[in-house]
C-alpha cells in the first residue's frame, strides 16, 4: 500500500511538469510547424498573387481606361462593345462554339468510352492510345493540319467530295460553314479527353449493380439510365463544366483557322480580344472584351468546385 502510494507520488510531479513542458514545446513545435508550412507555400502564393490575382484586378482597372490609357472612361468600353455588331456576333459565336462543341464531345466521348469498355485490358490500352493521339498533339499544330485540309483549291476534303461527284466546298470562306469547321476541330481535339474521363468512371461502377439489374430484368437501355448514368453523374458534370470553361476560352483554333473571318463571323472572345488588344493596340478595350468571359467562367467554376468537393467526400466516405 505504501509502495502503491509512494510510487505515484514519486512519479507524478515530474510527469506533470513533463506534461506541462511537453505542452509548451508541443505548442512551439506546432507554431514552428505552421511557419514552415507557410514558408513552403510561399512560392505558390507569390506566383499566384503576382501573375493571376494582381492581373485580374489590373484587368478591371485597365478596362475602365481610354485607348491611350490616359483617362478614365468608366464603363464606356463595355457600352461601346455591347453596341458593336461585331461584338454581338462574338457573344453569339462564343456561346454557339462552346455549347455545341461540349455537347458533341460529351456524347461522342460517352459512346467511345462504352465501346472501349467492352474490350479486354491489353487491347483496350492500344485502342485508347490510338484515340488519344488528337489530344496529345499540341492544338496549335494540329489546327495547322486542319487548315491545310480545309484548303479550298486542292484540299483533302474537297478531293474526296469531287471524287464522290460533289461540288467543292469553300470551307473557311463562308460564315456558317467556317463556324461548323471551327467547332469540328474542337470536337476532334476534345473528345479523347471525355473518353478517358468516362472510361475511368465506367470502370469504377461496381459490376454487382449490373448483375442485380440484370436479375431484376433490366435491358441495356434501362441499365444505362438507372445504373450507369446515376453512378457517373458527378464525373459527367465535372467534365462537362470543366470543358465548357476551356472551350469557351479557346483561342488557338479560331486564330489559326480563320482569324475571326469571314466577316467576323467566327470570332470568339479570346481571338477578338487579341485582335483589338494586341493587333490594334487598344489594350483597355481588349481587356473589357476578355472580362465579358468572366461571369460565365465563374458560374461554371462554382459548379465544378462543388462537384469536386462532393466527389472528394464520396471517395473519402
Amino acid at each position, binding site marked *: 500500500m505504501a509502495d502503491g502510494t509512494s510510487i505515484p507520488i514519486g512519479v507524478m510531479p515530474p510527469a506533470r511538469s513533463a506534461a506541462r513542458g511537453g505542452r509548451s514545446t508541443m505548442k512551439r513545435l506546432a507554431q514552428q510547424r505552421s511557419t514552415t508550412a507557410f514558408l513552403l507555400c510561399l512560392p505558390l502564393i507569390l506566383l499566384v498573387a503576382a501573375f493571376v490575382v494582381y492581373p485580374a484586378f489590373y484587368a478591371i482597372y485597365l478596362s475602365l481606361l481610354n485607348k491611350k490609357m490616359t483617362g478614365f472612361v468608366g464603363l464606356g468600353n463595355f457600352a461601346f462593345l455591347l453596341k458593336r455588331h461585331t461584338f454581338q456576333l462574338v457573344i453569339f459565336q462564343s456561346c454557339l462554339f462552346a455549347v455545341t462543341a461540349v455537347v458533341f464531345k460529351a456524347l461522342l466521348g460517352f459512346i467511345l468510352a462504352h465501346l472501349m469498355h467492352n474490350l479486354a485490358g491489353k487491347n483496350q490500352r492500344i485502342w485508347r492510345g490510338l484515340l488519344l493521339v488528337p489530344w496529345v498533339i499540341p492544338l496549335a499544330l494540329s489546327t495547322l493540319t486542319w487548315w491545310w485540309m480545309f484548303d479550298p483549291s486542292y484540299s483533302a476534303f474537297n478531293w474526296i467530295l469531287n471524287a464522290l461527284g460533289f461540288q467543292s466546298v469553300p470551307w473557311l470562306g463562308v460564315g456558317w460553314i467556317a463556324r461548323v469547321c471551327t467547332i469540328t476541330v474542337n470536337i476532334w481535339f476534345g473528345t479523347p*479527353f471525355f473518353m478517358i474521363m468516362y472510361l475511368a468512371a465506367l470502370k469504377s461502377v461496381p459490376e454487382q449493380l449490373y448483375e442485380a439489374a440484370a436479375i431484376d430484368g433490366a435491358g441495356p437501355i434501362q441499365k444505362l439510365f438507372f445504373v450507369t448514368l446515376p453512378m457517373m453523374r458527378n464525373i459527367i458534370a465535372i467534365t462537362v463544366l470543366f470543358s465548357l470553361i476551356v472551350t469557351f476560352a479557346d483561342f488557338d483554333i479560331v486564330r489559326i483557322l480563320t482569324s475571326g473571318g469571314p466577316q467576323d463571323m467566327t470570332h470568339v472572345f479570346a481571338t477578338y480580344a487579341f485582335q483589338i488588344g494586341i493587333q490594334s493596340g487598344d489594350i483597355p478595350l481588349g481587356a473589357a472584351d476578355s472580362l465579358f468571359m468572366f461571369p460565365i467562367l465563374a458560374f461554371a*467554376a462554382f459548379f465544378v468546385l462543388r462537384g469536386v468537393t462532393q466527389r472528394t467526400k464520396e471517395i473519402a466516405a
Partner: protein
Amino acid sequence: MSATTLGTAHARHIARRHSLHRQRQWALWGSYAALTVFVVIFLAPPFYTVMTSLKSSAEISAEQGNPWIVHHPTLANFWYLITYPNFQTYYLNSAIVTVLTVVISMTISVLAAFSLARMGFWGSQTLSTSVFLTYLVPPSLLFLPLFQIVGWIHLINSYWCLVLLYPTLAVPFCTWIMIGYFSSIPKELDEAALIDGAGYLQILWKIFIPVAMPGIIAATIFAFTVAWGQFLYPLAYLYTSNQMVLTVGIVSDLIRGDVFQWGKIMAANLLASLPPIIIYACLMDYYVAGLTAGATKG
C-alpha cells in the same frame, strides 16, 4: 420423367449460356467495328500531316491525283528544317522554356502540396480551394493585363517571360494532383519518421517524393504539355524569330504572306509533335491515372 425435365432444363441452360456468350461476342465485334471507324476519322489529320510532309513542293503545287497519298516520297522537307537555323532556334527555345517551366512548376507545387496535404496552417484550406480555382482561369482571360506587366519588367520579346508565366498555368493543377497523392500516403509513415527525428524536408525528400512518384510523373507530364503547346502567350509577347518557340515559329516563319510551304509546315508540325507523342506513348498510364484521380483538363 424427372430425368427428362432435368435434361431439358440443363439443355436450356446451356443454350442460354451459349446465346449469352454469342451476344457478348457480337457486342465485342460491334465495338471493334465502331472503334475502327472512329480511329480512321480521328487519325485522318495526323495521317495527312505525315503524307504531306513527305511530298515535294512540286508535287503539292501540281495538284494532281489523290492528295491523301504521297506519290514520290522525299525527306527533303525534314532535311531542310533540320539544317534551317531558325527552326533549330525555335526547337532550342522551346526546349529551354519547357525544361525550366517543368523544374520551376514541380518545385513550387511539390513544396506547396506537401505543406497543404500534411502540415497545414491558418488558412491552408482556403488556399487549397483557391489553388483549384486558379486552375480554372484560362490563359485568354488575363493575357492583356499580363502584356502590360511583362512590358514593365522589360521581358516583351524575350522567351524568359514565358518561363515566368507558364508556371501560373501548370502549378495549380500540379499542386492539386500532388495534394491528392500526398494525402493518400498513410499518416503512420511520416509520424514514425518524425519520432525518429527526421525533419519535414527530409520526410518530403526521403518518403513522400519516392512514394508519390506516379503522381510526380503525371504532374510533370502536365507541366510539359502546357509549356510545349501554349500558343497565345508566345504569339502575343514574342515577335522576332530569335526569341520564338516552336508553336509560333512554325506559324509565322513558314507562312509568308500568301505563300504556304505546306510540305515544310507539315514536316515541322510533325517534328514539333514528336516529343509529346513519345512521352505519352511511354508514360500514358501514369498520366491517365493522375488525370482521372485528380481533376480534369481538355
